[in-house]
């Protein structure tokens, strides 16, 4: 092994730079460098993801094969029940629309501009839950924009470069979303938990929460639009000595397997109307 003093100096220099960068990262000073790195890396990630996706899908298909029959039967039953619900909901929507027009209310469900994006990478650590998508500031993406799928809320934009962006998933421990229980309107905060799980905290003791209840965004705080599906209550933990109840929430969408998402481009807190 050759001993090189130059190499040691280089290593110390890199570590010093990284330390400085770690501190600079709290400001926006490191953004141009991050952007440059993303500019180089994101096309390679995109190509790799494209290359691997068919293999992953094929492997997923094999594992799903065994449960196809039971899944099919369950889905048929659910389909029938949902069809009936659609008819009833359509009636309710029309009635709601008419009443809102009569009262001159702003629509509670504003139409948003959604930008589809492809997932090209995930956080390489096992401790954080982030996605990397193939759209960036050049496509109109900005910090804190909500990210969804057709089924549910997924997260929010946490970092943007010209051609890619990072999405902090709602399952990341640093993520918290103001939510409510659809059935009882009980409010709380959904926080991320390791292993792509969610926990709803700060539900007042007096409020009723039960397994199966749907959890929606409440819009409080103005970070997310109202009434986006977050998940379904799986179990509730409450104790007489605690001020609040806790509920384990199953995400409405499998956050570990996302391939496509949509970024809500024109959401603003001012669009929040009426109470939940």
């Amino acid at each position, binding site marked *: *092994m050759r*001993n*090189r003093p130059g*190499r*040691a100096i*280089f*290593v110390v220099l*890199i*570590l010093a730079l*990284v*330390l400085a*960068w*770690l501190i600079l*990262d*709290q400001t926006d000073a*490191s953004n141009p460098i*991050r952007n440059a*790195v*993303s500019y180089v*890396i994101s096309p*390679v*990630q995109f190509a*790799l*993801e494209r290359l*691997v996706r068919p293999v*992953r899908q094929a492997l997923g298909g094999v594992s799903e094969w065994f449960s196809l029959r039971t899944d099919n039967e369950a889905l048929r039953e659910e389909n029938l029940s949902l069809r009936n619900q659609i008819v009833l909901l359509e009636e309710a929507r029309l009635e709601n629309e008419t009443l809102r027009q009569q009262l001159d209310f702003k629509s509670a469900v504003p139409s948003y501009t959604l930008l589809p994006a492809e997932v*090209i*990478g*995930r*956080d*390489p*650590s*096992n*401790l*954080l839950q*982030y996605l*990397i998508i193939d759209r960036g500031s050049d496509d109109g993406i900005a910090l804190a924009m909500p990210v969804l799928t057709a089924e549910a809320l997924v997260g929010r934009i*946490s*970092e943007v470069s010209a051609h890619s962006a*990072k999405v*902090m998933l709602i399952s*990341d*421990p*640093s993520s*918290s979303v103001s939510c409510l229980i659809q059935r009882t309107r009980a409010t709380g905060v959904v*926080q991320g*938990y*390791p*292993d792509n799980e969610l926990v709803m905290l700060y539900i007042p003791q007096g409020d009723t929460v039960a397994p199966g209840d749907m959890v929606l965004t409440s819009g409080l705080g103005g970070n997310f639009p109202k009434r986006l599906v977050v998940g379904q209550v799986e179990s509730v933990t409450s104790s007489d000595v605690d001020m609040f109840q806790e509920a384990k929430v199953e995400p409405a969408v499998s956050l*570990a*397997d996302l391939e496509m998402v949509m970024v809500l481009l024109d959401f603003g807190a001012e669009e929040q109307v009426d109470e939940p």
Partner: protein
Amino acid sequence: MSLYTVVPLFVLVSLIQSTVTSSVHILGASPDLVLMMAVACVLQWGVRESLIAVLVGGLTIDALSGAPFGCATLSIAIVSVLAGIAESNVPRSVKTLPYAAVAVATIVYQLIWMLLLQIWGRTVLWVPMFVRGTLPSVFVNTLAMPLMCLLVRALDRRVPDEPTV
């Protein structure tokens, strides 16, 4: 060992970790390829020879991660130095060294990472993250370590040494 080979390899492995293996979950964890490769390289070539390549791997992980920039690089540098201490004190004939080293390295790496996240104001759920993130990672990384050692040994045999200037 030639840096011109190992540095691009670390970058490629980082990209594979972010794009390919991050969606492979065993007990809720996916393999930390860069960490495993760093430990394997340090055990093969020593910390002085490997540290630059390891740092490049850490920097690439930082670029791909949502954590504050530098978390991965600092953690992996500390872990590599620790692996280097093990490499210089434990005889190579001890066959379990790579597995023990990667298991300890995973724990230290993730604890440092969590500490840095906490310092930088992120929410860290220490016990759940350790039990459901770190422990499965220890299992997965130890399980996959033989493959990484094979890869690094194959590199050692096939890649020529850096040309002397």
